[in-house]
């Protein structure tokens, strides 16, 4: 490689890294507890798993009626199911297309048709850590900013590999020179760790960027594939009729056997249409559990109107989440993910140290 090309790549690496280092340090530190969010959340819950018999459970429609009776004039917007207990979560609002701020979240125990006992209300510590990781507590602006930082990180990784190649010939792979100077030792550690964690860092960085684009990607899908599937009318929102939810669930599951319900969107909701109940089904494996299949059920008759797998860009978005958090391969994978997170902090710290400790003449010469 020509010296001028090398210098150009060095500049790209330096400035793309410096731009994102501080934010990546925040992301790696907040990401560490998020890898173990299931275990941390489990600490505050009862350790004894709940047991119940299907015969003791109320029909979904009766539990929904109990929730709606608590909020007269409200209509159902979304319905989801807890995995570890017989509880449904009904989101209600004044209208089917109510904004998020007007929605109310109602967990209902299918054994009692009442809110489940022992639920901790409010925002937990892990929710705050997630918000900090997601958007630096700055909302959408913070989210898109972190998405841009993810792209900077990807550029820093690519330029780092380009720079690593000519220098790696001398010491050899995974060699850390000792005794010459601290700086040389840290440069070798920076290169070794950066090189061997390249694929992981690239996957986590790029999936993080994809996750920040969830809203525009979902909006595109709603206007494109979902609208085509629902062949939506611009007429009024079909009102909710008691009994229709159970019928829609039954018909949707019969249309796609072997799948279970992830959530339901009622007419008017962002994930449905004005005249459909959208039932989102998931598969049994970690892969198919993420790739949701929407089944559009006519909100008047309860008959299935259309089924279609998600388009490629939605599949990419749905898979970006597990690939970012590394929570799909059991505890061994989580521990390795956490180790990689820690060593990436070493790469960031050593990069900063190398830049700060760069000899002044070298900096001046480069500036000239």
């Amino acid at each position, binding site marked *: 490689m020509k010296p001028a090309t090398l210098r150009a790549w060095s500049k790209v690496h330096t400035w793309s890294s410096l731009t994102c280092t501080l934010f990546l340090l925040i992301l790696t530190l907040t990401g560490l507890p998020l890898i173990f969010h299931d275990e941390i959340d489990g600490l505050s819950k009862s350790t004894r798993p709940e047991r119940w018999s299907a015969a003791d459970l109320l029909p979904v429609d009766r539990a929904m009626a109990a929730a709606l009776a608590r909020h007269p004039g409200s209509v159902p917007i979304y319905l989801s199911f807890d995995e570890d207990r017989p509880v449904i979560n009904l989101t209600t609002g004044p209208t089917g297309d109510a904004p998020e701020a007007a929605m109310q979240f109602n967990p209902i125990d299918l054994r009692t048709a009442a809110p489940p006992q022992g639920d901790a209300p409010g925002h937990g510590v892990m929710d705050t850590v997630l918000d900090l990781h997601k958007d630096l507590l700055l909302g959408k602006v913070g989210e898109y900013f972190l998405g841009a930082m993810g792209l900077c990180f990807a550029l820093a990784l690519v330029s780092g*590999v380009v720079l*690593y*190649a000519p220098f*790696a*010939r001398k010491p*050899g*792979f*995974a*060699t*850390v020179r*000792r005794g010459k100077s601290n700086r040389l030792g840290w440069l070798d*550690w920076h290169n*070794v*760790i950066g*090189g*061997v*964690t*390249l*694929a*992981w860092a*690239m*996957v986590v960085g790029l999936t993080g960027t994809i996750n920040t684009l969830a809203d525009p990607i979902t909006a595109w899908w709603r206007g494109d594939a979902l609208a085509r599937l629902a062949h939506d009318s611009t007429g009024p929102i079909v009102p909710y009729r008691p009994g229709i939810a159970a019928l829609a669930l039954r018909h949707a599951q019969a249309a796609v056997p072997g799948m279970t319900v992830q959530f339901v969107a009622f007419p008017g909701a962002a994930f449905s249409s004005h005249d459909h109940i959208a039932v989102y089904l998931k598969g049994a*494996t*970690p*892969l198919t559990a*993420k790739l949701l299949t929407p089944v559009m059920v006519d909100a008047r008759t309860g008959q299935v109107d259309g089924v279609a797998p998600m388009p490629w860009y939605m599949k990419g978005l749905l*898979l970006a989440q*597990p*690939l970012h958090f590394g929570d*799909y*391969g*059991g505890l*061994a*994978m989580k521990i*390795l*993910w956490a*180790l*990689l997170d820690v*060593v990436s902090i070493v790469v960031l710290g050593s990069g900063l140290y190398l830049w700060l400790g760069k000899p002044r003449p070298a900096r001046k010469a480069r500036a000239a």
Partner: protein
Amino acid sequence: MKQAHPLVPVAIIAVVSLAGMIAGLAGDGWEDVAAALGLTASVAPIAWALRRGRSLRR
């Protein structure tokens, strides 16, 4: 003997890690083992470099 390109081991580790991460998405049995092995390929050289550094110092 001709020396391999210095990026060859980096590329091999990247491919193995990536294959493991993707395999882990496909199921809960051997797929999880493949994911753990793939990620170990990224962590092991660091442990090796640490160990080698210690033995060089002695």
